[in-house]
């Protein structure tokens, strides 16, 4: 097998990151292979959770929830996607910088929708 890691390059960049968020980032770099908190069992549990949530959302769609149909369906979708992101995509175990990235992207996306709706809602 080839040698595992050429650290020559990382040596100079990783030790000198400064902002608090990056400190944690570094810690996660150094024990890269030690952060596998999730094993086969966890993944299968998450999968079972996702399937159950799908069953719930389909079942709920059959019931008339008046104005809440879309909101419940979207709430369940948000729970499902956060499960996928946190466990399957490892965000829960990754460096905080990734969480910040996601937060920034989502905030900007939400702002786009909100500002568009300032037009739509108040149109005469």
């Amino acid at each position, binding site marked *: *097998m080839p040698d*595992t890691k*050429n650290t020559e390059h990382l040596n100079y960049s990783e030790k000198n990151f400064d902002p608090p968020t990056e400190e944690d980032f570094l810690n996660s770099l150094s024990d890269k292979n030690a952060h596998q908190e999730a094993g086969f069992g966890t993944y299968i549990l998450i999968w079972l959770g996702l399937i159950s949530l799908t069953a719930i959302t389909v079942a709920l*769609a059959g019931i008339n929830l008046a104005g809440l149909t879309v909101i419940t369906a979207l709430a369940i979708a948000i729970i499902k*996607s956060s499960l996928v992101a946190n466990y399957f995509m490892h965000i829960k175990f990754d*460096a905080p910088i990734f969480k910040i990235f996601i937060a920034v*992207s989502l905030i900007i996306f939400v702002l786009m929708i909100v500002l568009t*709706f300032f037009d739509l809602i108040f149109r005469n």
Partner: protein
Amino acid sequence: MTEPDTLNIVNQEHTHRDDIGSKMGMWLFLFTELLLFGGLFILYASYRFMYKEEFIYAATKLDLLTGTVNTIILLTSSLTIVLAILSLQKNYKKLCLLFLFLTVALGFSFLINKYFEWRAKIEHGLFPGGSELLNTSKGETIFFGLYYSMTGLHALHVIAGLIFILIMTSLVYKNLQYNTNYQKLENSGLYWHLVDIIWIFLFPLFYLIH
């Protein structure tokens, strides 16, 4: 600072590997993908606001069973790809390959399902310019316009994801991805999960709002 005559280029030919950097690049790309669909979600939200009744009515024309089956297929494929990565990390190469094949199989069955769903709609004249859509409300035309654009773009992403995973399968097979070097496989996994997450939102918005 430096003795120029010691500037030896050959020594500087460095082929470093930066796993975290590679992962960060992948995530940044995922945000791009997210916002690509984001534009469509903004349109969906706006038109649903404008044509609420028509959207609810049009949604009843979609087949809930196909949608649910496809959701379960994609969720399961998300599980299999993450298990494939875990297997590789634990150095179970054969198990990894098995899970990769399962993922690809699930991805293909999603596409086949989608194909039959689209074909059924198109046979009923439910496509842009089709007989059924021409005689219906504007809201319904928009609903199906969005339905085809969004699920179509999603299907393209499924195909792209499958191509990545097939390439990864061959890399794993050739021992080019292994227990301490699996970032490419992990990146493909991230992409596949994104495709899954987008479907998690498409499913209720099109199939469950009636």
